């Protein structure tokens, strides 16, 4: 790592450590993570942890009964939801739900939070649809990845509101993607901040790398397909103007990301159709 990269890495770590509002994930997620990783644990114990939070339980059941799944019969209990959706998948949905709740209590100047989350949810849904098209085993992991892809931008808005505004102005003036404008002004961008934040939360490396490389998927080392998936999902959601995290236009497109996923143009139509069909339903559940 060269000196300038080391100093910008240090600046990003300071920025994240100076954000106490988001210093740690809610306790319920940590307890759930421990229970799932405990070989002596069982489904009832996992369900009991979720049921302690009635608001979280209600949201999860609404999700299980939403257009995201279209199960033929109604899912009435958390136990049933865990059985049919899967333990890891439900853990990912808990992560998505708790992070949105945590950040919705945080104020940041100069950003339309509602629009930010609409965009984040849209990218999550598009990433999930891409993963489903590719027959990925756990599509919820991709929903979380998409949902969190711009989380670093929220930290920049919270801690550096003037620079955040300035980067939007610069990106419009010079017709740059917003991450390029941030990099010119700050020497780092929101993907660096997101990667460090997820690392501080001890989330899996695949999520850290997917978030950290979503504008530069060619640089992803261990999880290039995760980065490629969220790169494309971000482009689709911006193209369809499903919310906005401040990006004025569709961000730079890296063609090799699409080629690496082995999808066809017909798949694009299916991905967009499916994402649009699920969007409003999921939005209502997460943003009510």
């Amino acid at each position, binding site marked *: 790592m060269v000196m300038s990269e080391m100093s910008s890495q240090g600046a990003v770590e300071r920025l994240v450590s100076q954000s106490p509002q988001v210093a740690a994930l809610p306790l319920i997620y940590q307890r759930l993570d421990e229970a799932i990783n405990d070989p002596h644990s069982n489904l009832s114990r996992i369900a009991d942890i979720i049921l302690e939070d009635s608001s979280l339980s209600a949201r999860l059941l609404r999700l299980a009964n939403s257009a995201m*799944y279209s199960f033929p019969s109604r899912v009435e209990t958390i136990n049933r939801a865990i059985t049919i959706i899967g333990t890891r998948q439900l853990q990912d949905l808990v992560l998505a739900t708790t992070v949105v709740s945590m950040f919705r209590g945080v104020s940041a100047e100069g950003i339309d939070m509602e629009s930010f989350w609409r965009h984040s949810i849209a990218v999550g849904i598009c990433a999930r649809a891409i993963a489903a098209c590719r027959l990925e085993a756990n599509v919820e992991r991709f929903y979380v990845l998409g949902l969190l892809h711009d989380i670093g931008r929220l930290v920049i808005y919270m801690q550096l509101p003037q620079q955040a505004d300035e980067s939007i102005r610069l990106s419009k003036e010079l017709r740059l993607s917003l991450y390029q404008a941030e990099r010119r002004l700050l020497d780092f961008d929101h993907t660096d901040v997101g990667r460090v934040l997820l690392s501080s939360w001890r989330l899996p490396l695949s999520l850290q790398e997917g978030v950290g490389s979503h504008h530069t998927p060619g640089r992803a080392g261990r999880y290039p397909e995760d980065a490629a998936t969220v790169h494309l999902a971000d482009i689709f959601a911006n193209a369809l103007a499903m919310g906005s995290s401040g990006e004025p236009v569709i961000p730079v497109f890296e063609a090799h990301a699409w080629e690496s996923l082995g999808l066809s143009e017909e798949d694009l139509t299916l991905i967009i159709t499916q994402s649009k069909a699920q969007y409003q339903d999921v939005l209502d559940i997460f943003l009510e």
Partner: protein
Amino acid sequence: MVLAADVSDLSGRVLLKAGCVIQPGHLQILATWGVTAVGVTGEGLGGSNPDPEREECRIPAAALREIEAEVVRRFSVVNGDHPLMRRLAAIVKQDLMSNYSLHGDE
């Protein structure tokens, strides 16, 4: 579009029967269970998929110019020559035209 044959998931369970007219909700079921392609007969998505050329004729020229300018603006920093971006731009234009047809320029 009408299903040409039964559609099953990986375990062999039948999800949709042959002859079923495919509706948008069916696409979700298929995607949920990992089905990415099916055999079909007939045309149109449940008979409700708009014909882009016909829809374009119904939109006033000024509004159509605005829609096209918006598509160009959104794609201003991407490589618009790539086939995927061309297809995506066509979807976005169709989306904006459908929105105009439903809501006008409100």
